[in-house]
């Protein structure tokens, strides 16, 4: 809850016990989830995912990006709940992206310079509306979950 809303709540003459509840919820805000442990991806995959989400929603003058909002951890949690075929789509997608990078630039994606990473992103996002290749389909699911994770994060909510 924004401080303003909370103050309003108090000003609105909310009964004392209610304010206590509101207070508890403010406290919950300060304690937003942290200390998350990966459930599905390994550290290496998570680093790659983290970079990909930041390329989709980068930090800019306006607000932090997907990296700061820890969007890859949200994706990990959701993928961990998904059916095996969806989980495969993620692991295969990450692997295919890595292969693409090595084929085109002879380097792992994370070691590519920004311009190269951008070229790969352009390739995979080309057919967003009607994806056909494995990588195009992967981009679509990656982007959807990134948007979900970012625009429900605290910075996505209050500063984006």
């Amino acid at each position: 809850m924004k401080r303003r809303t909370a103050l309003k709540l108090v000003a609105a003459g909310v009964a004392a016990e209610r304010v206590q509840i509101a207070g508890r919820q403010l406290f919950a805000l300060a304690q937003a989830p942290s200390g998350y442990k990966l459930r599905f991806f390994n550290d290496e995959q998570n680093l790659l995912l983290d970079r990909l989400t930041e390329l989709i929603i980068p930090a800019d003058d306006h607000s932090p990006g997907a990296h700061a909002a820890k969007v890859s951890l949200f994706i990990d949690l959701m993928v961990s709940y998904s059916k095996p075929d969806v989980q495969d789509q993620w692991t295969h997608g990450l692997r295919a992206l890595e292969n693409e990078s090595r084929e085109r630039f002879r380097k792992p994606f994370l070691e590519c310079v920004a311009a190269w990473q951008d070229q790969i992103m352009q390739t995979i996002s080309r057919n967003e509306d009607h994806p056909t290749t494995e990588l195009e389909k992967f981009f679509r699911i990656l982007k959807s979950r990134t948007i979900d994770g970012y625009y429900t994060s605290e910075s996505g909510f209050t500063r984006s």
Partner: protein
Amino acid sequence: MLNALMTQGSSKPDVFDVVVVGAGAGGGTMSRVMAGKGAKVALLEAGPKLVPEEEFKEHDWPYHYDHRGAGPGGAGYFGRGKPFGFMRTTSGGWELPDEPYTVGAGSEFVWFRSRIVGGRTNHYGRMSFRLSEWDLKARDRDGVGPNWPIGYADLAPYYDKAEKFIGVTGTHEGIPSAPDGVFHEPPPPKAHELLVQATGKKLGIPFIANRRAVITRSINGRAACHYCGQCGRGCLTASAYSASQVDIFPALKTGNLTLLTDAMAREVLTNASGKAEGVLYIDRNTRQVKRVLGKAVVLAASTCESARILLNSKSKLFPNGLANGSGMVGRNLMDTVGLSVSGYVPALEGMPVYNTDGFGGSHLYAPWWGYNDHAKLGFPRGYHIEFGGGFRMPGVHSGHNAARRAGYGKRIKEWMRQEYGARVGFAGRGEMIPNRFSYCEIDPAIVDDWGIPVLRFHFKFSDYEWKQARHMEETFKGIIESLGGRVTGVGNAWEKSGISTGGSIIHEVGTARMGTDPRSSVLNPYCQAHEVKNLFVTDGSCFVTNPDKNPTLTINALSWRAADYLAEAMRKGDV
């Protein structure tokens, strides 16, 4: 005082004055009014107790949760979550695993049930509209469907009482089809609503302050609404009405109300002379069959469920089910006609994001405006318009459309900023005329997990409703065009055929209708069974027609009226 005639002494008598079944709008009102008069009341509720402090999440943000509101196990992604999302308080849904129902061949019908103290009122939309004389006596005008046996003059004093007690916002408009009430001041319109209002004026559609059961000044120890805008999640301050917090919890403090939770009523018990003597129920915790006895029995288990209980209460005296000599129990099932159209309005792009102070849902709505035009409209009854838009609470799924085609990178953020608040949606809510193809009955082959025979539904809209739905579609497209916008979708998931699926608007009524003639109705105009003087049904079952007014305020009013009548009858020794 009434008290003198009713059970004295211990707070848990062997025989209660009144046994009420169902702790929703109808049962909550009945229990509160009767307990307030000194009657000893037993209230049976199939669901568990409600603890608002644990259940309600109206002040939570998605980022309070690792799953960001997708729900434990990511349920929201897999169609397994709560209806309307994790943050909503529901305690029920479209399917209750232990209580199935069936649908007859060729019909489609869905049945939303809540199982908890407060029933569906903990999270309902709280749209609160009065029926008008125009609604109640519509047959006199157009010859279609039945009239109600009561007129506006009978109902008005109870609308007054109900509104004063519950608290409903609104403004005085003098529109004949939408009678004014006793109102709390409504919150001011939001920016997009003002735009719609202005366009409505051009089109001859009046958008006026919404009438919702939310208080904007403090009454009866309830705080005025603090405008968090999340009424559908439940309201910790009870500023938004719920039967649990506003009727039942205070009534428990009188000491006259005994609340039995996890108590699944199976049938009404009758004695040799045909009077009701109590209710047979199943304790869901122990699976034991128990009975609770009362001098009067009131069913308010929700429309259809009350019909189910009556139909399952078979005896030698009542072989077709209790109070069913007319054969009308389960018949005349109606829902509301629904159709929605969504649009995108460039004029709203890039608006500065502001804290949209107010209650949940729209601050404006349009009551039916075409009441003089039916001869040329080609359908007999009207609808009102509910609409949404503005800066809505984001959640998982809500940004996909906006970001689609924006590729990746900074453009997404720019585009999201640009388009946040530019989407609008209009939903029609129209009257359905009862027809012989729409009813519920006991499925002869299937019982639920509690061994109770279940309902089988049959449902069909007629030409009247289809024509009305087409009018909705054209009207909403026209509004969006007039806003300079483009239509982005017609019909939601329930409306793929061009009209809402029966039951999906969750305004089912009519399955034990009232009337003056026992041959064609189940209840008299006070919701009292023609055939069983000490039996009442005070939920939406008693409705004769289903005007475009969402039913709950009328359930509150009719239940209150029935309670006054019952108390007086008990005082006189008539029941």
